[in-house]
């Protein structure tokens, strides 16, 4: 098996330069690649276009990159939790493209499946449709949306092996498997890194062919955004 292992986030993001387009997995703060985000912040890479469902919160996740003005453009579906984001957006400092969540997910999927575009009814008749081709199938209108192109896709998995095969846990799966398929270079950071043969092939969510670099992350905070409990 091909060994994809690198030692840490610093080695994983080697070759990432100013102005690149990144995909970052996660939904809210759930299943985000914490180690790589911290390393990108540390290295101060700037002028980035980030494709991610959300933009983190002010002091965690992609919010850390926003605070250091490393992001030139954000492509996301929901950004309601981030005051600094909203400030940069309303002041015009940050270029933002808001797109429907299913469109975001399926444009990743298309990239990983080698298809140039998808047709979706989401956004027909709204400002999301402006400038896009509309096609009618069976009496219903659909927007043509293009597959994403990303220089790097950065995902977080629960377990992975040295060949890059990945398994996600619970709803931390979210955008991670589809973004893992969509990067020109895909980096996976995992909580547990095992030898080949230790993962059941039937249980693999992302086949290692999609993953170029893998490492075991450290010091995961796994912050909870909305802690909700019921009475005992």
């Amino acid at each position, binding site marked *: 098996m091909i060994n994809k292992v690198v030692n840490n986030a610093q080695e994983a993001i080697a070759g990432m330069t100013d102005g690149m387009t990144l995909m970052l997995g996660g939904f809210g703060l759930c299943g985000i690649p914490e180690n790589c985000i911290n390393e990108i912040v540390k290295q101060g890479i700037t002028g980035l276009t980030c494709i991610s469902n959300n933009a983190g919160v002010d002091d965690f996740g992609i919010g850390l990159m926003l605070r250091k003005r490393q992001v030139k453009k954000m492509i996301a579906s929901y950004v309601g939790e981030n005051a600094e984001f909203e400030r940069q957006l309303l002041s015009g400092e940050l270029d933002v493209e808001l797109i429907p969540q*299913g469109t975001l997910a399926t444009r990743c999927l298309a990239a990983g499946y080698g298809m140039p575009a998808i047709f979706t009814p989401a956004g027909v008749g709204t400002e999301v449709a402006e400038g896009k081709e509309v096609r009618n199938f069976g009496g219903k209108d659909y927007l043509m949306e293009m597959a994403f192109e990303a220089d790097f896709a950065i995902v977080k998995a629960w377990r992975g092996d040295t060949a890059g095969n990945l398994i996600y846990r619970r709803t931390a799966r979210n955008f991670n498997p589809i973004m893992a398929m969509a990067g020109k270079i895909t980096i996976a950071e995992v909580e547990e890194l095992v030898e080949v043969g230790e993962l059941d092939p039937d249980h693999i969510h992302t086949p290692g062919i999609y993953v170029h670099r893998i490492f075991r992350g450290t010091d995961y905070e796994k912050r909870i955004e909305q802690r909700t409990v019921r009475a005992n």
Partner: protein
Amino acid sequence: MLDKNGIAKRIAKEIKDGYYVNLGIGIPTLVANYIPDDISVVLQSENGLLGMGPFPYEGEEDPDLINAGKQTITMLPGSAVFDSAMSFGMIRAQKVDLTILGAMEVSEYGDIANWKIPGKLVKGMGGAMDLVASAKNIIVAMQQVNRAGESKLLPACTLPLTGVRCIRKVVTEMAVFEVDAENGGFCLLERAPGVSVDEIRNATAGRFSTRGDVPEMQL
């Protein structure tokens, strides 16, 4: 006049045995508390879960297990986890029987606006645009009027649209309406306890109609 829980309680009556249901953020989330025990319903969370259970007990929160509102949740026996593309695949393919979501405005033709107030508030559409474009059965849970006392049931939406001609039913603190997407108009189906037809008419800016006597809601 109903409170938020009252709206949720009324909407829960629309849920039938065997339904797969997607609940939006806000009042729709409360609907889960009023689903009768004697029916089987599976809740979908669009980040990638079928079989969403109640909030966890304190100390049992799992950061890897959240709903679309980023709240910690639990899974029920028989749950399935999947990625976000499959999640919207099942929504687009109309496998979800009922979608309940909130709105800032609804028009008399069933247009909905719920994601942006230009220059003031930009949260994003999340999964709402996908849901309203594909779901066959959508109920909007909303307040009849905004904080300024102006009706949110309008001849035409003033805010950027989320979807066009997609809403058929609206439940507010005052009433249940059916939306006539063909001819345009809010047809009053039920009144909240103690609320008159005239009060509801006065709080409805879009075209308004009734069919015979309008019954009071049974909660």
